[in-house]
């Protein structure tokens, strides 16, 4: 533990021979009161001043300086850095030596130094016209490897010299790339934010800064400097941010942090020792009973060793953890009320809670700790157990009404009710897969009637698999914690393991692992085997090596492929073609569909000179259609799967490259699936109609749709609209002529599109007419041309009961006629029936007729 001071200083001293002034300040730092905790930092105090006294830069600074490294406000920069523009890296200009200019800076404060650096004339700054970031303008040379070189090229400042400053970068800096500049600022302890606020201490302005930002700068009267100014600032500032008040506060905060890490570590050791002591005692007591030796502390994984031991230790997600705890602690009360009373927070109706969020952020731990702290016994089932419906019934269901044996005996002594009870923790609910048949449904069932609290844990709450849990569980979301909340914990671990970890680079690591604490601790543990230090030197490569590779979801694939930046000359270096192809392979069923769905929605940024948007879209469309040709080869009987990479290019990468740019709206899920099934349905309907009408028409499906249907609609619908009830017999007559059933009538109406669309017209028909039509139709017996299972039998007076004889002999059975009037017609109809016998007839109407009349009947029908 003695090493703590050296540890935090180590990173400072190693870097640069500090100037005399720097050592002076660091001495000063030691002198300052240590118990800074008693000296609360007030952020707000100067908030109003700065507008009044804004003219003096020093005041602005004081006002604008924000204190911390540990600020709670969510910061956009994390994300932004991840998507940070590809290194633009111009052939770097010869390094300027701003140091010489700076030597004169006497006072060690940021304020003083800043006042020496010339402000940028805001009005002279070239304002970007379009709000779009254009890559072509700056991307003619350079590659990513130069970015690192540039960072090296940058004047080196004293360690932590920007401590306490809040810096905003905007626009394009002339020689260094923005991401690099931000990294530099962070390395020296500054806080980098994206948006300008009253807390901003200084703005580094580049070319083409957004007009809004300039306005804000003017409004807030914040000091604006250019890149050279920034260099001067870095080079000129003394170690630890000088003696400005802001730096002071920041230092105190940092100090606090160190102390906390130290304290936590010490505490942890203490607890550990206690435990060991206890274990030893227990073992000596029951030496013979329990032969198992305890696992040595150093043989544990770090993730186990440093797992949180109480709910307070969980990084981030405080509200979620509290929610869980409140719910669980009130569970008995809710139960007494029969889960009827929702209560103020609405927790009261739930017997189960669903904790969800990405992996590695402590969901399972939180559930276990919450149960433990409230004295519940835990019954856990996870994905390594079979959880099918029957097994859940056999295993878990019984437990629902049981009491815990352990708790039962314990509770005799201290009378804690909870101890007699279980909490059931179902881990990895979304991991139920093959072999867990019916598990999800059964589990949801339990959630409705369980008499034990249940905590369910999953990663993807939104997946369709989790549907059954909607509204039966209290949803508690865990989010990825932000770097600041992880920082303290990691520092504690580092201190404990005597490992040098530069607090300023934790952000970078957090970003690489996407906020996964477990992974971060694993990372530390692995790296610590060979080296005892993570600093700026190796942070970059470590972050890269540990970046998680995860197969993307269709939405992310489309989003990435449509990003215009990756197709520019520079962008294609940092995100080369093979990576784009890999995107396709992340989900090669959906990627092409998603591209096809969304390619019209972009604002292309990579148009060739003189090319219109429309032309680009045409190119893309052509490519997609050619991709379909390829796909047919792949998926048809030929199964030429070796063409898959080619399909990747033609169906996804190439079309996307033509129209890539900013998305105009949000990315839609492919509608192809829906359309395809709709198409299938229409084909089925058309097929059916064609079967029925085959006797009186002479065309194929397509012809039927194109030529017959418009006319049919005129004959079948228009009379009803115009003449109402009078037209009904006529319409029915037409239908019978074509062997159309009532369902066919509906289908035909559905087929009409455009100006013929029938919805409105059908609405115009009075209900009386409509029902009259239906009644009349049903009351009659109709000829049916083709036997088709189920769908074509007449619903009328005589259901198709005895049809099959007619195939062989003409039955002479008389059927009670529906209507005298219809007699003759029906007669004819029947003859038609006989006609169709050559096909595959099934006759619904049983009107008598003779076989000999076949041809006569046909003739007769024609004359009709």
């Amino acid at each position, binding site marked *: 533990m003695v090493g703590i001071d050296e540890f935090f200083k180590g990173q400072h001293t190693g870097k640069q021979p500090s100037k005399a002034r720097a050592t002076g300040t660091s001495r000063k730092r030691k002198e300052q009161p240590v118990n800074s905790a008693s000296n609360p930092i007030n952020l707000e105090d100067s908030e109003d001043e700065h507008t009044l006294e804004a003219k003096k830069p020093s005041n602005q600074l004081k006002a604008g300086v924000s204190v911390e490294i540990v600020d709670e406000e969510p910061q956009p920069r994390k994300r932004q850095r991840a998507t940070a523009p590809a290194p633009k890296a111009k052939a770097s200009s010869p390094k300027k030596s701003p140091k010489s200019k700076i030597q004169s800076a006497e006072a060690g404060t940021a304020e003083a130094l800043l006042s020496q650096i010339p402000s940028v004339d805001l009005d002279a700054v070239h304002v970007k016209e379009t709000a779009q970031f254009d890559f072509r303008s700056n991307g003619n040379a350079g590659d990513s490897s130069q970015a690192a070189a540039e960072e090296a090229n940058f004047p080196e400042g004293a360690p932590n010299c920007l401590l306490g400053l809040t810096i905003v970068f905007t626009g394009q800096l002339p020689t260094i790339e923005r991401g690099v500049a931000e990294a530099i600022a962070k390395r020296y302890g500054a806080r980098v934010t994206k948006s300008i606020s009253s807390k901003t201490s200084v703005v580094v302005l580049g070319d083409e800064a957004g007009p809004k930002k300039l306005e804000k700068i003017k409004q807030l009267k914040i000091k604006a400097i250019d890149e050279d100014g920034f260099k001067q600032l870095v080079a000129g500032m003394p170690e630890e941010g000088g003696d400005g008040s802001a730096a002071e506060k920041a230092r105190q905060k940092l100090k606090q942090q160190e102390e906390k890490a130290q304290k936590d570590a010490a505490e942890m050791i203490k607890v550990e020792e206690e435990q060991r002591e206890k274990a030893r005692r227990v073992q000596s007591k029951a030496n013979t009973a329990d032969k198992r030796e305890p696992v040595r502390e150093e043989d544990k994984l770090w993730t186990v060793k440093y797992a949180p031991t109480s709910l307070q230790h969980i990084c981030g997600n405080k509200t979620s953890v509290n929610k869980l705890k409140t719910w669980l602690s009130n569970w008995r009360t809710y139960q007494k009320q029969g889960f009827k009373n929702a209560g103020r927070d609405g927790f009261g109706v739930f017997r189960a809670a669903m904790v969800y969020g990405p992996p590695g952020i402590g969901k399972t731990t939180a559930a276990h700790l919450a149960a433990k702290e409230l004295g519940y016994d835990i019954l856990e089932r996870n994905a390594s157990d079979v959880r099918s419906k029957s097994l859940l019934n056999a295993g878990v269901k019984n437990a629902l009404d049981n009491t815990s044996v352990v708790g039962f005996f314990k509770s005799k002594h201290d009378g804690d009710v909870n101890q007699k009870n279980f909490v059931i923790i179902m881990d990895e609910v979304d991991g139920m897969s093959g072999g867990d048949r019916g598990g999800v449904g059964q589990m949801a069932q339990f959630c409705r009637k369980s008499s034990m609290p249940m905590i369910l844990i999953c990663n993807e709450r939104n997946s369709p698999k989790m549907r059954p849990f909607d509204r039966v569980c209290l949803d508690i979301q865990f989010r990825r914690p932000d770097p600041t909340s992880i920082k303290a914990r990691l520092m504690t671990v580092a201190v404990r393991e005597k490992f040098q970890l530069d607090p300023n680079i934790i952000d970078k690591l957090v970003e690489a692992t996407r906020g996964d604490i477990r992974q971060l601790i694993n990372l530390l543990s692995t790296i610590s085997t060979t080296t005892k230090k993570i600093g700026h030197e190796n942070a970059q490569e470590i972050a890269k090596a540990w970046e998680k590779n995860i197969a993307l979801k269709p939405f992310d694939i489309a989003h990435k492929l449509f990003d215009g930046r990756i197709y520019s000359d520079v962008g*294609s270096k940092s995100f080369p073609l093979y990576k784009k192809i890999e995107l396709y392979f992340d989900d090669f069923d959906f990627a092409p569909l998603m591209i096809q769905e969304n390619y019209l929605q972009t604002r292309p940024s990579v148009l060739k000179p003189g090319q219109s948007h429309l032309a680009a879209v045409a190119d893309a469309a052509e490519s997609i259609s050619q991709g379909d040709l390829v796909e047919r080869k792949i998926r048809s009987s030929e199964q030429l799967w070796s063409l898959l*990479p080619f399909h990747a290019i033609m169906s996804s990468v190439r079309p996307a490259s033509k129209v890539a740019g900013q998305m105009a709206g949000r990315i839609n899920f492919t509608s192809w699936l829906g359309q395809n099934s709709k198409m299938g349905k229409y084909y089925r309907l058309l097929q059916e109609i064609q079967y029925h009408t085959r006797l009186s028409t002479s065309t194929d499906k397509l012809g039927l749709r194109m030529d017959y249907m418009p006319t049919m609609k005129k004959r079948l619908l228009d009379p009803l609209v115009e003449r109402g009830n009078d037209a009904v017999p006529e319409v029915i007559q037409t239908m019978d002529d074509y062997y159309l059933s009532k369902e066919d009538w509906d289908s035909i109406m559905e087929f009409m599109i455009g100006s013929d669309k029938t919805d409105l017209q059908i609405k115009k028909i009075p209900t009386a007419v409509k029902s009259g039509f239906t009644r009349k139709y049903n009351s009659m017996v109709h000829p049916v041309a083709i036997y088709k299972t189920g769908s074509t039998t007449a619903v009328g007076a005589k259901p198709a009961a005895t049809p099959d004889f007619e195939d062989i002999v003409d039955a002479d059975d008389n059927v009670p006629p529906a209507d005298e009037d219809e007699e003759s017609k029906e007669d004819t109809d029947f003859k038609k029936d006989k006609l169709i016998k050559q096909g595959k007839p099934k006759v619904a109407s049983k009107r008598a007729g003779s076989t000999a009349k076949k041809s006569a009947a046909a003739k007769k029908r024609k004359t009709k």
Partner: protein
Amino acid sequence: MSANALKLELPWVEKYRPHLLKDIVGNEETITRLQQIAQDGNMPHLIISGLPGIGKTTSVSCLAHELLGNAYSQAVLELNASDDRGIDVVRNQIKQFAQKKCSLPPGRHKIVILDEADSMTAGAQQALRRTMEIYSNTTRFAFACNQSNKIIEPLQSRCAILRYSKLQDDQVLRRLLEVIQAENVQYTNDGLEAIIFTAEGDMRQALNNLQSTVAGYGLVNGENVFKIVDSPHPLIVKRMLLAPSLDESLALFKELWNKGYSAVDIVTTCFRVTKNLDEIKEAVRLEMIREIGFAHMRILEGVGTYLQLAGMLAKISKVRGL
């Protein structure tokens, strides 16, 4: 023992597979880390990912051997893609193994090695999650895979991820020379060059090619090596695609064709090469790939003629604006 008898004995890749971590070629930093782990014990859960033939499986098994020594047979469970690794196996076999008691020296744990883990189903991987955590005091897991993105995120989060990079040519060469010495192989320098050339950083491929050449021709020289290797060399194809004029390009192609490479092999190599052809702008490359792809399609349909490929080259030179 004569050289002939040796050839029948074992594939050289197996015969010369390193048994100690220090013998593994390349990726020094990672290997040192593994050596340190082998020394100290307390192996974390591991994911080793990288291209084929760069020593992933070898390093895992070396590590296990060095950690466990004689206890290897009982304290290691090794499953690869040839074994059934469905969800049932994970729930039964692996879980039981994790629960098994095994006397090991302090700091040593049972190890489950899952080779080619990227071919495990997502369900099976899910089932591993809690097992890895609950039994972490006695059992550690090591995964080897080609693409780490096929491992589900929760597992990645539980593991130390080690990425192996391609081997450098001189690293391959050093190892090849060792083998050559041990096997007393006759070789010429251009033969070795050709082997390294064709292996593209894949140690296993290099050794296999070496052995095949020796078995087939006895002497390892450039000509013999290229006879063994079935697909045209990427560099030649690259030269063909980048040729400043169509005539040159066609001449190079004719050379390839006369060596007897099949049209499919040529066209697939073309595709692969063009994909990574950094000399040409990406937009142009996409057009080139389009032409190559359509030629590929036609060749697969059965028209794998000289004319077909010559036509493809002509179209490519048109696309490139020559």
